[in-house]
């Protein structure tokens, strides 16, 4: 009886599951019927989450619906170049574009994007039963317009974390040496002072033991915006300088003189600390973007560092790329005293919450078919495998999936940190002039990095340059 009951229950469960799956499949097939001749064209940055869309989700969607999907993965610069030109001129080449969190405000200000909430409300037959905006984490809010509607379906979201080598931090000999040298236990730093102490210790340890080991990473490229981002979005906030030190509510002031904080004492202290870390980082740091920082960490050349979450996955788990698999832990970035309390009280943030969404450009000629694809990649059902292949979580339910829980262990608790402490991080400020100001001030930052300018003078110049650019652009009156 017992056996028969088990078989009966299993059969019932299977038939319910099959019926549900069939019903879902039936929806996609029926909804896709009018678009059988359509080929969707999308452009995105070549990142692990995007590659998963191209290699896994797009073929699955094609098989299910008959709608062809052509996803072009390219470099960050090329992606923006192609997408912006297409939307600016209104050619309608692309039906889907990657919207990185920092560019969404620029796109919204130019009405480049389709309101997906409205599109689904106007076309109820397109609405997939398995898709709901409520499924997304709060990261989706970055892609909402002033009306609260969603303009992009989140596809990647991660935080820039403090990654450290557990094998080194737990090595008895190293722990003993560290204690003898500093008088305290070796554990992940909570303050800049502690972080610097650990960094200096490991750089010296590597040198003394003839190892290719340094104490910290530094994303300090002297000719690439990556260094701008590391300073303004990862370092300055930990000293209480938020939104690049520009006060949007005060006529976009950047200089202290006009009420901004870009050249404030806190900003200068942050820059000097970061430069001191750069000086004891591996030699390649001056030519490192976010990618090379990941590579440096994966090659086992550093003991700790600030690393983008998208790279944490392969560093922690991919033996074909990383030499430190199973040897990494995650923690919150080091902070100045009082910053954590300030952020928990709702002012500012402690680091960068990065990610992006797929949106439909306004000039697209296949908005409805594209909306079907966006719903497909936004379903809870496709998320766990995607999160395992590329460490990104955009849907609340993903955290509880057994596969993701397993991955979480390999990543040293990264997903737990993302879920529990993600609220402490923030995306780029809501500026429509993001790239314009960045490009205006970056050359001065590069000169600081090369030593041609001292940090104090450099930051003064950067703040003045930012204000000048904002005046040119018409935002600062």
């Amino acid at each position, binding site marked *: 009886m017992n056996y028969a009951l088990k078989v009966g229950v299993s059969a019932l469960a299977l038939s319910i599951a099959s019926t549900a799956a069939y019903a879902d499949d039936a929806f996609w097939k029926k909804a896709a019927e009018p678009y059988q001749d359509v080929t969707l064209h999308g452009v995105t940055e070549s990142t692990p989450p995007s590659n998963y869309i191209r290699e896994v989700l797009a073929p699955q969607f094609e098989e299910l619906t008959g709608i062809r999907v052509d996803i072009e993965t390219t470099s960050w610069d090329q992606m923006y170049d192609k997408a912006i030109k297409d939307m600016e001129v209104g050619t309608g080449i692309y039906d889907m574009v990657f919207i990185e969190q920092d560019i969404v405000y620029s796109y919204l200000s130019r009405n480049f994007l389709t309101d997906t909430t409205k599109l689904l409300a106007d076309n109820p037959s397109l609405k997939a039963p398995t898709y709901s905006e409520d499924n997304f984490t709060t990261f989706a809010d970055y892609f909402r317009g002033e009306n609260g509607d969603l303009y992009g379906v989140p596809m990647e979201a991660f935080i820039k974390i403090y990654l450290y080598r557990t094998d080194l931090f737990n090595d008895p000999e190293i722990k003993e040496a560290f204690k003898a040298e500093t008088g305290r236990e070796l554990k992940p730093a909570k303050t800049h002072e502690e972080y610097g102490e650990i960094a200096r210790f490991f750089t010296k340890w590597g040198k003394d033991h003839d190892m290719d080991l340094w104490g910290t990473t530094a994303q300090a490229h002297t000719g690439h915006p990556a260094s701008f981002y590391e300073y303004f979005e990862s370092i300055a906030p930990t000293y209480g300088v938020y939104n690049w030190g520009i006060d949007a509510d005060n006529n976009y002031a950047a200089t202290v003189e006009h009420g901004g904080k870009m050249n404030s004492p806190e900003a200068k202290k942050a820059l000097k600390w970061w430069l001191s870390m750069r000086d004891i980082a591996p030699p*390649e740091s001056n030519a490192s973007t976010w990618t090379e920082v990941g590579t440096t960490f994966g090659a086992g050349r550093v003991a700790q560092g600030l690393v983008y979450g998208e790279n944490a996955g392969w560093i922690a788990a991919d033996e074909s790329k990383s030499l430190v698999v199973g040897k990494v832990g995650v923690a919150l970035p080091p902070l100045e005293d009082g910053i954590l309390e300030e952020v928990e009280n709702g002012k500012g943030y402690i680091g960068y919450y990065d990610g992006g969404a797929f949106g439909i450009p306004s000039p697209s000629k296949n908005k409805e078919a594209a909306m079907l694809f966006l719903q497909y990649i936004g379903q809870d059902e496709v998320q766990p495998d995607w999160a395992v292949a590329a460490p990104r979580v955009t849907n609340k339910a993903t955290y509880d999936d057994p596969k993701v829980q397993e991955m979480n262990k390999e990543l040293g608790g990264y997903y737990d940190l993302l879920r529990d402490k993600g609220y402490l991080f923030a995306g780029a400020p809501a500026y429509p002039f993001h790239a314009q100001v960045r490009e205006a001030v970056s*050359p001065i930052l590069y000169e600081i990095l090369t030593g041609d300018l001292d940090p104090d003078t450099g930051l003064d110049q950067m703040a003045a340059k930012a204000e000048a650019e904002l005046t040119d652009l*018409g935002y600062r009156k």
Partner: protein
Amino acid sequence: MRSNKLGWILLAPTLLILFFFGVLPFVYVVFVSFHQWNPFAASPEMIFNGADNFRRIVFDSAFLNSLGVTVAFVLFAVISEVIIGYMLAQAFMREFPGKAFFRTIHTLPLIMAPIIVGSVWKLMTTPSIGIIPHYLDKWFGISMNIGTSAPAAFFTIVVMDIWHWTPLVTLTLIAALVSLPRDPFEQAQIDGANKRQIFWHITLPMIAPALIATVFIRLMDALRTVDEVWMLTGGGPGSSTRFLGVHIFKEVFPKTNYGYGSTISVIVLYLTIVVCWLLYVSMLAPRNNRKG
């Protein structure tokens, strides 16, 4: 008349393509260069601002810096390529063991796309993992870091360009040397001319058209170099390798400053034409006058 009509009909597709993909975009760039236009400005529309962009360019230190490093790069790279290219061409005019193999190897860089060349050189020069800094340090104790040293970055780009494009100079000069008649050289030798005299008074004047065409090609290419530099240094460290092409790219694409970026493009085109014209006048005009 009929043959004229047929000629125009046959030319029409080419002229149409040239008009739509060459002339029209150029006219549009000139048109945009007289406007203030940034789609992400508070006023995203195109606003006519007369010659303001052209006035601004004269005082734009970033542009002037780019112009300076570009001129320096062009001088170093093109002159080196012509000298080395000529020497290699002369070497290939003689017989030596393994000549065919060496000539093939020497030509290989030409078939590589500039972006690939930039990537390969980036791998070779990245501090601490690149083969070049590694052996410079190991053998000579020289510390090379193109991320911090402006001269190192600049001369790495010059060497990369020489490596990439010298074969082009060599090939065109081999073609020119092969086609030279032997009589003038034999007569000069009978008259007792030495090698230097033969080079200056016979070889150089006779290969001058090919040489000048090659220099024009390299000059124009060097002035618009972007891909390799973008890949290798991104214009850094600082602005030390921010050549005009990279500067225009950064102005037009990331900054979306279409108006001012177009102005710089027009000025660069103008400067290229002027430089080529000056070169033409200084090298070919005296020769033509002598003929007259």
